[in-house]
């Protein structure tokens, strides 16, 4: 059964002018949001986007923008409480050496 979350919330945007059709975005998307048609990327299922930012970070020509963040309630609450960017503080600080 396919999971569906809230509609019309994703901040994903694609500039077709900049797109060179390399297909990296389609490759890294975990929810098949993007398809390559006529050698250009197309957003075909925006409501499935979870704003992970993989497409944006792997686009070599910066044609994609999305407000990437963790979709996690406790992260958002922590962000509100500490007045900072939401982050899931799931790691304790540990020394490297």
């Amino acid at each position, binding site marked *: *059964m*396919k*999971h*569906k*979350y*809230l*509609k019309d*919330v*994703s*901040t994903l945007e694609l500039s077709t002018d900049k797109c060179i059709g390399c297909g*990296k975005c389609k*490759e*890294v*998307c*975990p*929810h*098949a949001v993007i398809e390559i048609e006529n050698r250009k990327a197309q957003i075909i299922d925006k409501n*499935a*986007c*979870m*704003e*992970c*930012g*993989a497409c944006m*970070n*792997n686009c*070599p020509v910066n044609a994609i923008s999305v*407000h*990437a*963040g*963790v*979709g*996690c*309630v*406790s*992260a*958002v*609450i922590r962000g509100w409480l500490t007045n900072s960017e*939401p*982050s*899931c503080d*799931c*790691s*304790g600080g*540990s*020394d*490297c*050496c």
Partner: protein
Amino acid sequence: MSEKGCCSPAPNKPRTVKVKNSSAPEKQCCCCSVAEPITKYDLADHWITGELETEKGKVPVVSTRLSFKDKFGAFKVRFNIGRMKYQINPGLYAVGNPDSHSPVMVSANYKLTFDSLRKELDGLNCWIMILDTKGINVWCAAGKGTFGTAEIINRIEKTKLSEIVSHKKLILPQLGAPGVSAHEITKQTGFTVAYGPVRACDIKAFLQADYKATDEMRKVKFTMRDRLVLTPVEFITAAKTVLFILGIIFVVNLFAARPFVAADLLTFAAAMVTGTIITPVLLPFIPGKAFALKGWLLGLIVTACMVWLNGWFAVNGVLLAIGYLLVLPSYSAFLAMNFTGSSTYTSFSGVLKEMKISIPPIIISIVVGCIVLLVKAFMR
């Protein structure tokens, strides 16, 4: 940060490494006499079966079978025992008998992640380059940037990878992609990045298909089993706050005309199980899209059943019925909403919208419900 440590030989091509998202630069642990090992390891660890001599030093060889100890370790972290300390050392590991042409896979230093990778590599000869993700799995670490471009570049240097393998190809798990800019890694190290499948069990098929993942391998699923294994951590996290609530109930009971009894606690426990276990497991089958709504609906049904079983719909119990029907479905809703953090498909913007809409009514209904319950407790 310049990657030239005091003791490392000057790299062939001098390059500067841009460090984004990195935690504090690693302490320089070496001094000029002894070269640092590629990977710090302990041969006594049961999952290390031997060591492999490379030109740059020894690398541990790991088993592709999970022992009872590995499985018990996985069980413990699923129940939130020592979950944040279940780590292995970053560095380079060998599977089978790899040589300079063998593929290199990149993964996180959460042992649960490492175990689920190595058990799929039986019969292969390959390298595993483990990043320092502070013991966090690939996807979460990618979201935070610890599984990221800077750490990959740093780890390539530290493990002297380009001198151990002759090719220039890394295989990354696809779910690491949110933290990584593949073209940036190529630009700075010469290594190209192939994104492998989402699930480790598809790796052999991916390798056989000449580093091509099918569309199916690229999609994230979230099956009932996937959801079920995540629920114990949800339940245990919620249970910790319950101790606080029990403390308040104990104090109230000292003075109450109608103290809280086992029936009350059971009703409460049912709502907690509904929010942390039943809602996540039944997730796609419950109407609605927002997690809070799903949790509230199930919480309402379960609480209504409990109230009915306890006979509180009768005239003398009606305050209890009203109180619990205000408090508990909202509590289930909040717990269910927390599961967005474990889910594989909720977006940041979506979660924010859901919270802005649902948190005010959740708080109001819990506060009003608590007042009603306290009135009942102290009413003579």
